């Protein structure tokens, strides 16, 4: 098991009202699995991902990454945790514009304990020929693939993806999903993808649906489809 949550709750106080972004969520995510978290805007999926990734603190409840209790860790420990175990992919790539594709990846490989070579990571996402290009010289799909290369280069145990195809057209979106699938299969990285694009659930091992901060359903896909077959 990679992640386990127990009565995980996150309350945002906005003015006088309290919003339960997560309401006693109990969830288990497994080794090597590609899970898709589905839900409408405000269902709590991003909050869940941020807490799993050590970017946010829970209001109550517990989260474990393997034996590590994230909810018991202070800021410094969470930084260490992100550095050593987690890869992030965001909707808006978040590349450093002043660093080339290779250098953006090296940003991670320089500090990670057991990284792959920056060139190899970019090769994996099909960008072996654009190593020295800067973000401004790359298309949106290419930038997202650099972001993926940066996330996988440290050989993380988990890859957390927040709307990875949200800013992309269907063709480049498919390319990005192919890369995620390949990473999952060849390196065995556990991947959690959150999206509101229901089509993407077809490629997951398991699909978790969230609504109003609660788990609505957890389904196991008996037959998974390849990304290029996904109806966008």
């Amino acid at each position: 098991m990679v992640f386990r949550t127990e009565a995980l709750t996150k309350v945002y106080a906005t003015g006088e009202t309290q919003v339960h972004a997560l309401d006693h969520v109990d969830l288990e995510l497994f080794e090597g699995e590609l899970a898709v978290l589905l839900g409408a805007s405000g269902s709590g999926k991003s909050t869940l991902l941020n807490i799993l990734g050590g970017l946010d603190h829970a209001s109550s409840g517990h989260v474990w990454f393997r034996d590590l209790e994230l909810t018991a860790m202070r800021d410094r420990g969470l930084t260490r945790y992100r550095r050593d175990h987690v890869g992030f992919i965001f909707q808006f790539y978040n590349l450093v514009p002043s660093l080339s594709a290779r250098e953006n990846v090296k940003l991670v490989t320089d500090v990670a304990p057991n990284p792959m070579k920056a060139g190899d990571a970019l090769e994996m996402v099909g960008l072996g020929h654009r190593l020295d290009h800067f973000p401004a010289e790359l298309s949106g799909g290419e930038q997202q693939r650099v972001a993926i290369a940066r996330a996988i280069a440290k050989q993380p145990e988990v890859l957390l993806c927040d709307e990875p195809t949200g800013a992309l057209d269907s063709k480049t979106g498919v390319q990005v999903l192919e890369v995620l699938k390949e990473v999952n299969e060849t390196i065995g990285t556990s991947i959690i993808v959150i999206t509101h694009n229901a089509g993407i659930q077809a490629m997951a091992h398991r699909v978790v649906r969230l609504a109003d901060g609660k788990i609505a359903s957890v389904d196991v896909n008996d037959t998974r489809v390849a990304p290029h077959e996904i109806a966008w």
Partner: protein
Amino acid sequence: MIPVSPRTRSRGSAVQAIDIKLLRDFQRLWLQGLAIAIVLACGVAILLTAMGMFTALDDTRQAYYERNRFAEVFVEANRVPRTLLPSVLDIPGVQSVEPRVQGIAILDLPDRTETALGRFISFPASQEPTLNIPILRSGVTPEAADEVMVTTAFAEANGFEIGDRFHANLNGQRQELMITGTAMSPEFIYTIGPGALMPDNEGFGIIWMPEAAMEAAFDMQGAFNQLGLSLSADAVEADVLDRLDSLFDPYGGLGAYGRDRQVSDSFLTAEIDQLNSMAFIVPPVFFAISAFLVGMVMSRIVTLDRAEIGLLKALGYSDVEICLHYLLLALMIALVGILIGSGLGTLLARAMAWQYARFFDFPYLIFRVPAWVYAMSAFAAMLTTMLGALRAALIAARLAPAIAMQPPAPPHFRQTVLDRLMGRMQLRQTTIMVLRSILRWPIRSALTSLGIAAATAAVISSSFMSDALARVIDLAFNQSYRQDAMVLFTEERPLSALADLRALPGVLQAEPQQFHSATLRYGPREKDVSLEARPVGAELSRVIGDDGRAIDPPAGGILLSERLAEQLGAMVGDVIEVEFMTGQREIHSMVISGLAEQYLGLGAYVEIGFLDQKLRRSPQMSVANIVIDERELDALHGSLQQTPILSGLIMMNENRRAFEETINQNVVVINAVYAIIAVLITVGVAYNSARIQMSERARELASLRILGFTRREVSGVLIGEAMLLAVIAQPIGWLLGAWISAALSNSFTSDLYTIPLVLAPSSFARASLIVLATSLVSVLLVRRRIDRMDLVAVMKTRE
């Protein structure tokens, strides 16, 4: 239909929504705005101070000169019969004359062991003098032969009251005198004793004595030895001077001169000129820095406001209104700066004016900062700020609404030779980020560095003065003038008198020296100087060459200070004409046999034997330099005060003490002021630039935090860039500081003194230390924002 802007349409309501936005923007930016406003305020304050003091000194001087009828032309001679006066009045342009008897005498003051010097001036018995009228500050004018009136500063420094008595050695006769009054005179706003470098009110004073008593004491019945003249409006001063010279020649005239060479006035003029140049050199630097800061902050605001600008335009606001909106924001910053600067400037000008009033002897001070000075500095401050903001405001105005509402294109980076170099150097990625960002915005980086360099330069150019003065003191007192005292004789004495001097108690060593007023001519140029003659190998009073070693004037030639040679346009080997104003007024040709580095006065030196030979006479001296055994000082003063042939004794230690005291007082204040200014500039530049970095890079820095970089590592990027720019700024600041110091050293140079360009490494180090420390503190203030950064929120928003 003619399109009408929304502003005109809704003129009914008092406050426009866009104005509210303006106020809110200003509120949001207040700390950054304040940092800029303070830099601007420095410029305004300095401008006001310099201009305020300039007008105060200039107005006061003018009023004082007019009310007390300060003479315009002066002439001194050995002894001129009063019967010559009608011929003087016949010179076209001469309006009135004031003949006087004057002389220097040694004073024996109660409660003071050291001898003091007095310049005695005759005071007409029946009526007020026509020119150079003293202002009586207390008591009455002297009438009896033993009554005198002294300068207020001299009386105050020595604690004299009306009715107090002291002794003077008047032309060989010891005489008791009683103080009947104290006065000030436009002639002695700046009083400096013979051979002194700085005013010493305790050891030197002006003493007015009834005319009859003066004539008797100095053997001048029916004659005078100094004349002051006033001229009519149409007079040509140069012609009058020429006519006076030929008229006074037979009477041992020492050359007529105008106010420009009157000691007190020329010091005052030099000071006023310095204030004037300070008003025009220093404030523009501050205005330029604040313009740059405003420009930097405004472009960032316009970038952040992009979507809002698009929206405003879509709503129908015109380009001009958008442009004005941002210019107004800059104007608000300028107004805060002007307000702070005006208050500070007024206070500072007043405080400094009092400081000056103490240094210069003015009976009153006309202090007012004229309204036009306020208006001018406010205008200059507003103009520069607006200029700084103009580019950003125009960019805002030119943004097309459709484009403005889309996010801006990401900054473009490109592979360059430097990148390959960085790749080869195996730098950390965060280091590369810092370097690329500097290279990507070279102008901004350069300007930031330049701003910080200006701060370093400000400290260097202020400490330069103290370093330079330390050098002057060292050269003057330790290298050139090493005697404990100079003994002045009433007239030239044979060298054999040295033996008598050596016999006095406490005199360990004595060396002769001669001083002659002379005019040096080379081609069309001429210069009036004091020609010094001393023996070869003189140890107590030496001429120091550029290499710091003592040089003797080579026999058969004349040694000139570099500045004097430059002014004459003559070089080593050239033959110049020397006209002596003393003795028989002989004219001789002399070869320039060497040049010497000199900071004070325009020096010209010859070997004493060579001079006596030229003048066809036995060896003489007009001054003896002596070394004194401190333990017998009192005994020495006692016997000197009884010696009739002496006209004065100058104690070099006191001279030095007075000089150092004055310098130190000023230097400490000036250094502190400039250090504060440097800190303010640095905070203004470093804080604003770090804030902008922070704002531009929030996303990038948040990415790093998410990737697992620690706060320390992430702030390293921010601090690294700011500090790298600050470090790069240091050598530029050193150069700039050296350049400003050189400019100051040039502009302060006059016939009276040169301020040498001394650049002490310790001053450079101190300047850099102050500026780097301030930069670090400024960036650390911004760094706290990294700690408070909301990672999730930053990443969620699209840039």
